[in-house]
Structure formats: C-alpha cells, structure tokens
C-alpha cells in the first residue's frame, strides 16, 4: 500500500517508508530539495516551514504553514506540499513575496529566509493585507537571529501593496489541485509495513477504534507537535503509529446554545473562529499557544490527550467545566476534563481508547471567564504558569468559582483552597487579597528554567489581584491596555 500526495507540481506515491520519516528529512535527504532548512528539529524555529494544502471538513482547499521537521510523512496523504522550490516562476523570476524580501533587505545570513518566505506566503494567501499584529502572529514560529525582524515586517507591507494574490499560481490552480486531492482521498484503511514498524492510516474513527484495539501499543498522532519531538529529540521508537489528523469525523465543530463541542482532531486554526466567537476572553491566550505552524498542526484534543501539566488549553477548559469524550470499540464514555488528569504522566484513558471530543459549556450572562498566560517570552513559549478563572456572580456575591492552573503541579490543577476562600464572599479587593495566601495550600510549584517556585507562587497571587482590578475597571492593569 502507499500514500499519495502532490509535491509542488509532481504527484507522488510513497510506499515502504519508515513510520517516523519526517517531511523535512524526506525533502532534504530523499528528494535532494535543500531549500527547506533544519534549524532546531523541534518545531520552534521555522526554518523548515512549508505549506500543506488539504481539503478541510467543508471540502475547501486550505494552505497552511507547517513545520516539516516534526511533521510525519504518514500524515500527508491527499495533501499538497508546497516548498520554497515552488515559488519562483517557470523562467526563474522571483515571486512577489520573495522580491519584497530582497528589496527590503529581509535576509542576512539567509538560513531562516526560506521559512520566513513560506510563512509570509501562507499569510498572504489567506490574508493579503494583514495588520502588523497579524503579521507578528503569522511569524511567531519563525526565528531570525540576524535582522531583528524590522526589514521582514517592512517586506510584508510591500507584499500587501504590490502583489495580487489572484495572480498567484496556487490561486489559479486551485480547482485542479482540489480535484487531484479529492481523488487521492482514501476510501479504505491504509497500512504501510516497514522494517521500523507500521504506519496505520484509518479511513474513519470507527476504523481508528478497531486499529487501536488491535494495536494497543500504537502511538496516536494528530498534529505531531509534541510526539514529533519524541522522535526528533529523543530518538524514541514510537511505531506502530496511527495517524488521525485527516479524519473528518473527528474534525466536527458543534456550536449550540448551550455548548461548543470540538472534535478531537480539530486544529487550533480550525477551531479559532468557534472558540473566539464564543469565548473572546481567550483571545490573548489563543494567539500565545505555539506559533502559527503549531496552531495549524496541533489539536486541542492532542493538547488534552498528552496529559502535559503545561498545556495551555486545560486550565481554561477545566474552569469552564468542559468534559471529554473517549471512544473505543466498546463504545464511548464521557468524564469531566478535570478528572481525566490523574497524575503526572497518567490520564484516565485505557490503551484502546482515544479522545473523541471535548464539550465546553457556554457562559451565562452572570459568568466571567479570564485566562492569563505567563512566560519568559510573550509568544511561542511554554507557560511558566497558565492561570484561568471562571466566576458566577450573584449580585455582588461570588456564587460559584473555579480556578485552574497549569505549570503549578504535575497536572493542570484546581485551586480549591482559593476557591473556598472566595466562594460566597462579596467580590471585592479585600476578599481577593484575603484569599491570595490560599494559593500556598493549593500548590507547591517547582523551580525550573521557566520560573522559580517563588515567582510562580507570587504571580499566582498577584493575578487574582489583576483579575479583580480588571473586572472593577479602574486603572490600567495589562500591557495590552496601554497602546
């Protein structure tokens, strides 16, 4: 068996490949396409950025920037991979995105440049006249050590002014590629055998349940933004791998009056509109999760399923009272998300189960949600701590409250002592200040390279004060308030 995909303007059928073969190694080592670079092999520098076009659950062809270094080949069936080599015209003339970078002196050593070009290109295809904030968001996953970024931001202005997205080949060839990819979409399960182990690509979630039941040691991969590093950094043997990123029946978004239900395979980028429309309070946090490439690949289901104590979605989801749905051949079951996290490295998931969906109750009018992420660097950094609060007010009174934090314990964890200190009290600065010390009963955080224990504790307390000040609307309390 094989997978099929489009690489620039070539159709490729790939069989007998290693289950952990990355897209970047495939391009550089097997195809000799050296335009995409390896800078970090962990999805943090963006030098390997390429675009992947796919038919989304609505059948639309979308191109998204991804990190080739942690993207596995097995996840690319029926995709269009677009690399830096594809951008120049037939007679070698530069694409307007490339020309603008030349004209603005956007490269110095040039090693990060192909990755930047691909990120800018991906942005421009979907948003030809982005704001500076949007450009910065699109470039969160690209590091440059030479230029200081200023000329790259100037280049995007030039691109917006000079280039017409409709004249771009990817735009013009849309229908043809769409048809080709649609033709490649799998009808049956795909299994690819290799000396290093099997690649399993189920055709739907039912097949996934069966495959997982038959291969309880399999590694499930959706976005590979975490598991990719097990291979690239830890050289871990993770076969057999079951890829689920393509499963349309895990990519459903159900938006009702009472709740938002996200399929486990919905990427951050695909969930963006639904999440931010329903929970605009999560806007700041949302764009501080990974970089654009990671948001394009990673899923909220994966962020939960991997059980990390520093994932950024569990704290707000726990405070919102979200539940998680698990499925196996035996059927489905649901449990509160909070209970899914048992201890560090251990979740309430049987080996033959997979995370199917997350259901998030919507906010009532008297309910407040706020989330703060604290990290060394603002963007594309792992949280030192992630602080989330949900409050139901009854007049002046705190009728109900949930506080959950990441980065403070072995799992995303509720601050029950603080909640108790606040509950049934009037929502005042005095109440909050009096409750601050209770964080010490709830958490005994670690000191590590992201923050010291003292800092984590002090900030946990201070953020309660920030929350109050913000809600009471007095002085400026966040950097974002001050334009």
């Amino acid at each position, binding site marked *: 068996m094989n997978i099929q995909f489009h690489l620039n303007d070539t159709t490729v059928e790939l069989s007998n490949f290693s289950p952990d073969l990355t897209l970047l190694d495939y391009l550089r080592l097997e195809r000799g396409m*050296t335009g995409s670079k390896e800078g970090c092999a962990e999805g943090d520098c963006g030098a390997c950025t390429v675009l992947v076009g796919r038919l989304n659950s609505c059948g639309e062809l979308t191109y998204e920037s991804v990190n080739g270094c942690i993207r596995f080949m097995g996840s690319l069936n029926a995709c269009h991979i677009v690399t830096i080599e594809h951008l120049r015209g037939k007679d070698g003339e530069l694409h307007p995105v490339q020309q603008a970078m030349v004209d603005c002196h956007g490269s110095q050593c040039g090693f*990060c440049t*192909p990755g930047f070009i691909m990120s800018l290109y991906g942005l421009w295809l979907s948003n030809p006249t982005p704001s500076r904030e949007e450009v910065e968001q699109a470039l969160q996953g690209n590091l440059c*050590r030479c*230029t200081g970024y200023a000329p790259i931001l100037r280049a995007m202005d030039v691109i917006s002014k000079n280039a017409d997205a409709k004249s771009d080949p990817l735009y013009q060839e849309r229908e043809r590629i769409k048809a080709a990819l649609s033709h490649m979409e799998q009808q049956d399960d795909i299994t690819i055998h290799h000396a290093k182990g099997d690649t399993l690509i189920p055709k739907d979630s039912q097949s996934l349940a069966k495959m997982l039941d038959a291969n309880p040691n399999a590694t499930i991969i959706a976005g590979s933004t975490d598991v990719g590093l097990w291979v690239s950094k830890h050289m871990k043997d993770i076969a057999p791998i079951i890829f689920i990123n393509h499963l349309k029946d895990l990519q459903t978004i159900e938006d009702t009056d009472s709740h938002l239900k996200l399929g486990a395979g919905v990427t951050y980028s695909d969930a963006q509109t639904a999440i931010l429309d329903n929970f605009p309070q999560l806007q700041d946090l949302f764009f501080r999760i990974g970089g654009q490439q990671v948001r394009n690949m990673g899923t909220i289901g994966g962020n939960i399923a991997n059980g990390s104590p520093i994932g950024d979605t569990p704290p707000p989801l726990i405070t919102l009272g979200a539940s998680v749905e698990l499925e196996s051949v035996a059927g489905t079951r649901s449990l509160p998300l909070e209970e899914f996290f048992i201890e560090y490295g251990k979740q309430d998931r049987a080996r033959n189960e997979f995370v199917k969906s997350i259901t998030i109750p919507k906010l009532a009018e008297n309910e407040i949600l706020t989330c703060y992420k604290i990290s060394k*660097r603002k963007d594309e950094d792992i949280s030192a701590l992630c602080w989330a609060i949900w409050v139901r007010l009854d007049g002046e009174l705190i009728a109900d409250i949930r506080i959950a934090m990441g980065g403070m314990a072995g799992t995303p964890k509720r601050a029950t002592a603080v909640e108790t200190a606040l509950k049934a009290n009037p929502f005042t600065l005095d109440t909050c200040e009096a409750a601050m010390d209770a964080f010490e009963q709830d958490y005994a955080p670690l000191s590590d*390279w992201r923050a010291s224990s003292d*800092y984590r504790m002090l900030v946990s307390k201070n*953020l309660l004060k*920030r929350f109050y000040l913000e809600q009471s609307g007095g002085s400026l309390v966040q950097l974002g308030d001050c334009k």
Partner: protein
Amino acid sequence: MSKITRHDSAHKHVAGTSTYSDDIILPENTLHAYAGLSTCANGTITSKDFTAVLDMAGVVDVLHADNLPRNIDLSPTGQNDEPLFAKDKVEFYGQPIFAVIAKTRDIARRAAQLAEITYNEASNAIDVLDAEAQNYPNVTAPLTLQRGDVDSAMQNAPHKLEGEMRIGGQDHFYLEGQIAIAIPGEDDDLTIYTSTQHPSEAQHMVAHALDIPFSSITTKVRRMGGGFGGKESQSNFFAVVTGISAHKHRVPVKMRPDRDDDMISTGKRHDFVARYKIGFDDKGVIQAVDGNFLARCGYTSDLSGPVTDRSLFHADSSYYYENVRLQSHPLKTNTVSNTAFRGFGGPQGMLAGERFIEEIAYALGEDPLTIRKRNFYGTDDRNITPYHQVLCDNISAKIVDELEDSSEYQKRREAIIEFNKQNPILKKGIALTPVKFGISFTATWYNQAGALVHVYKDGSIALNHGGTEMGQGLFTKVAQVVAEEFSVDVECVKITETTTDKVPNTSATAASSGSDLNGMAALDAAQKIKARLINFACEKYQVTSDQVTFENNHILIGNEKIPFGDFTASAYMERVQLSDTGFYKTPEIHWNRETGRGNPFYYFAYGASCSEVIIDSLTGEYKISRVDILHDVGSSLNAELDIGQIEGGFIQGMGWLTTEELWWDDKGRLRTHAPSTYKIPLASDIPDEFNVKLATWSKNVKPTIKRSKAVGEPPFMLANSVLEALSMAVASHKNYKVCPSLNAPATPEEVLMAIERLNKG
C-alpha cells in the same frame, strides 16, 4: 560609495538556492560522525565501554582519547588545555568523550547513546560565585588596568557606593548549527567544508591533529547561516573530528550535531559578576572606580583571556575615570568553555559602566542622562582611557545631544514620570545610553588581511579574500570596493568562497574587522592591477596617466572610450599581469598586556539609543514601546547593510538583556538547550516604534576603507538602554531614590523580583 546594493546572495536566500554546508551534495560513500557527550559535570572516567556502539549495524568506528594517534588539543591560544575528547577526567556535562562514525547520521546519533561510560563524580562549580567560593583557578592570566591613585581618591571622594551586578551569558543561536564535511584527496590532502569564521584556524587544527603540513589541508566556506562569534573557535571540533576520521578511513565524513547537542557542547557568551566601588562628587562626577569582573569561563581558556580583557577595555563605557583600577577574574567553572560572541566581553564591561552611572544618578536623585553627560570623555582633556590610550575621535556628546533632541527624550521622560504617578500597576521607563566601542583585535598580529583579485580577459573579475560571509554583507561590501576601483558594475565582480588555498594565514572574521581589513587588502590588489592597466594604456596610446580614467564600465583614454572587457583583452595580448594579491595591516596599534598600556584600538565607533518600556508590576511582564537609535558608521560603505547590522545587533542585544536566560541545574546540565527553552526575540518582541538613523555627518578620522567604520559589534550594545529603561520603571516604585540593581537578563521574573527587593528593602 553608499548607493543601494543588496546583499550579494539575497536572491538566492529567498529562492532557497544558496548553498550552506548541509546542502552540499555528498559523495555516495560518505560516513557520518556524531559525538558522545559526558553526563557528569566533574569527575574521573572509570570506564568506557563501546561494545554496544560497535555492535550496532552501520557503525564503522568509534574515535576516543585512547585510540587517537596522538594527543589532539583544540586550544585556540596554544594553552593545550582543551583535549579533543576527554581522556581520564571530564569537566563539564556535555564534554565530548568520543565520536561514532557510521553509515548514516541517524545511525551514528543513535549509536552514540549506547556507549557505557562510568564516572567517579566529584563536586562541581557551575556558577561563577561557586567557583569563587571554592577557590577555583583562573583559566588564563587575569588583567589589571590601572591609572591614578584609586585608593586615596576613593577615600577622599565626597560620595562612595558599592554594588554588585550579575550579567548573563548568551547562546549564539546561529540558525545554521555547527557542521563540517572532510573529503580526502591525494596523499594526505583533505578538503574541509565547514561553517567557520576562522578557516585558517580550522586548517591549522586539522593539520596539527594529523601531524601534517598546513599546506595539505584546504578549508572552504562559502557562507555561514550566522556566526556571531560562535564559529570562531567552536567550529574547530567538528572540522578536526571529520578531518581525522576522513583521513583514517579514506572516505568523506560529515558531522552535524542536533541543535540540543550543539547548544550543550559549544561555548557561549561569558556571564559575569561585576563588583564595584565608585567614588564621586556632589555633581556625580566620578573620581574613582574600583571594579572586579568575575567571568564564568568554563572548563578551559579558549578565548577567555582576550574576552575578559575586552570587558575591562569597555568598563569605561563612554566615561572618564580619573582614578581607576579594573581587574579581571577569568574563573574556571564546570561548564562548557565560553567563547567569542559579538562584542567579545565588551558588552559586559560596558553594561557595568552604565550601572555605575545609574547608581550615582539614583543616589543623587538625578536623571542618569545628566550624570552621563557630566562624565563623558573630553576631547582635549579628560581623554585618557584606563589603558592609557588617548581618545582622539570622541563624538559621544554630539551623538547623544542629537538623539536626545530627535527622540524628544526630555519631554517623554517628564510624561513618563507623570504617568507613573497616576498608575500603580503599569509603570514606564525611558533611558538614553551611549556606545563607544574600540575597533581592532587586541591580539595585534590578527590585524592583517590578504586578498586575491583576478581580472579575466573578458573583463570579468573574481574576488577572493580571507574574510568569511556570515550574513553581515562582507562579501558585498568588499565587492563594492573592487567594483568602484575599476568603475565597473558590482555584478561584474564574482564573489568566491573563502578558501585557505587562495589566501593563506587569514585572521578570524571577528572583532567587527571584516571590511576594514579585507576591504583594504582587496583595494590594494585592485590598485596594483589598475596601475598596470594605466601603464599599459599610457604606453599603447602614448598618453600620460592623467589622461586615463575608468568610468562606467569603460576606460577613457584621451578621446577614446573602450569597454572595460575589450581593454583587458588587449592588455592580456600585450602580456600585462591581470591578477594580483593585496595585503593590509592596521597601522599605529600596539598593546602591552604586562603593563596594561598601549593603543590597542585604531579608532572607536560610537552610537546612542533611547528606549522606552512599560512593565506590569504584578507579573514583571513588559514590552518595549519605542526605540530611537543614532549610530556612527563613519562614511558608510553600504547604508542598507549597515542599518541591517544596527537593527539586528540591537535586537540581539535586547534578547541578551531580556528573555535569553541560560539555566543550569545542580548537576551542571544546561536545561535551556533548544529554542523551546531558550528564548531569543521574536518579531512580536521588537519595539512598536523603531527609528534607526546613521550619523551621516561622521567620517572616520583614520584612513580606513573609504573612511568607513566597523559595524558588526558596536550596535549590540545599543540595547543597554533597554535594561536601564526597565530599571527606571522598577525604580518608580521607590520614587527613583534607589537604584533597583536589576540583573541581566531582566526576564519578567527578574523584573518582578527587583520590585519585590525594592519594596522589601
């Protein structure tokens, strides 16, 4: 000279067609090397068992200290303190112990995990203060700079204060990691493609390792994906391992570490603890400075001697110290051996110098800028540095005045003080700091360069010199110099890779010296050829030399206008030599380290920056709202490239002082060893408003290439104003009466903890 000329490789960068070492197509039989690293910070090796490594399919060899043909040492300063592989003792967590040679990189990397090394672990000193407490030795001889009578001046000063500042290190985070490929040729010949700022040193190291003449080894580098000092000596390990294994197995060998191993096993910027006593008068004029600079050097000397020397050379920042004693303490630690990094110790010294000013200003309740101006070097008096060099090109005051004006510093400072009164949580700060950076290698013999220029019959020109291209645009600038000399388009000058078989005995491309040295050497070569062409024109057309001019790709001889290529073709037919070498050595410089006296610098580059920040006093988070820069590059060779160096240098410096934190655990493991844990600035970290200008009125007083000034390192230190602006925002919590002693890097945690210290103190 300063017309817009793009980086010579810009179009290849954006197309993905510029070739880096990792992109070179390899011969089919190429083997791959991967290093095995120590997992003990300090101790003796009790056993090494490579059985499992050698048993792995695809493994060809394991090189380690016990099977090398001779002792191989990598010390770039001849101190013989840096063995290629640890033999009996290990001195840092991550020290190379062996290298696996295998059929693929993946096999070599996996096999390297299978070695069984056991240790007898001893106690360690990771931090510089640990090293001090445990009486660890210096890795190299310390330096003292002294002038005047410090002790009595300190005693008599109306005001005295003392303090201590921690100044963090920094990983280079070149986007392209270390890499080398060695390809054997005839006899003992080896060609080594490697990403290095110092091809000659790589050549010498490999030759020494194999005990063969330098002439057998050729090192080549077309471009690096960034260097910043991290590929001056640190690249040698990879060149030597590939060199000796290719020589041994008679096949090409390539070595490219993973980013984590690169960051763990190669050196970084030295972090410092600066301890100081300052005596000053009521006006804040400094009367005495007594400074001690303790540096975490790591387990060997590497370049720590010249780095710590340079920190002392710049501890005066832009200020005159009437009585001064500065001492370096290059301490050994159980960490990777620290190395060159843009500024080479200068930034650490200069940052301490700015802290002195800040301390005085807060003690006297004055604006630090006022104190700065009172302490600036004079032009005719108060102009002697702690190393007894007389400053003869001082433009600090003019630069600072101009920037103070254009940035509206005073108005904004007033508004900020008002803002801070109104806002309990968000606090703003502003600071304007100067830069004065000495240009020349302090190792005087390094200040030489060679070049080779060929003019072909068709008039096309090939240019080669000893400088390396790491993104700074050196190749472009030197090509511009040659093109201008012949009055041809810069496109007529073919830029060729740096290779030790064309220009020998080169210096590292470092110390900002690239265009100063190589530009002059290339000019020398071009001038020799041009003189012959003029001679030939005079003879052939029977004119005098003043009737021969080069203009717009032509040669004008009397009334004749001949295309350059036609003229060179006819010169060839008349047997005119159309190729030549050029040479340059920097005049006037000398330095006596024993006496601490001399003229180590040919000239100084100046600049100033004004940064405004806003901090959140509940979390320590901050953002940089606005930065204005005025920088001196003399008469610019290429304004666009220079501005690129300034913007990029500033942001790199900002990273050093803000989010870039190196963190070792108590076992000596570097835990910030990849971009996921080590945070260099992103596009969203740069100032909201970023105004960068060249001081276009400046000309180098020294006859450098086209009267330009070096630009690689000086702008890095423009970022000092960011730290000081953060400091002001913190100081607002005590009404600017106490210097907050903010350490670098000022992570959000450090900012919040500085506020805590102020509030508790």
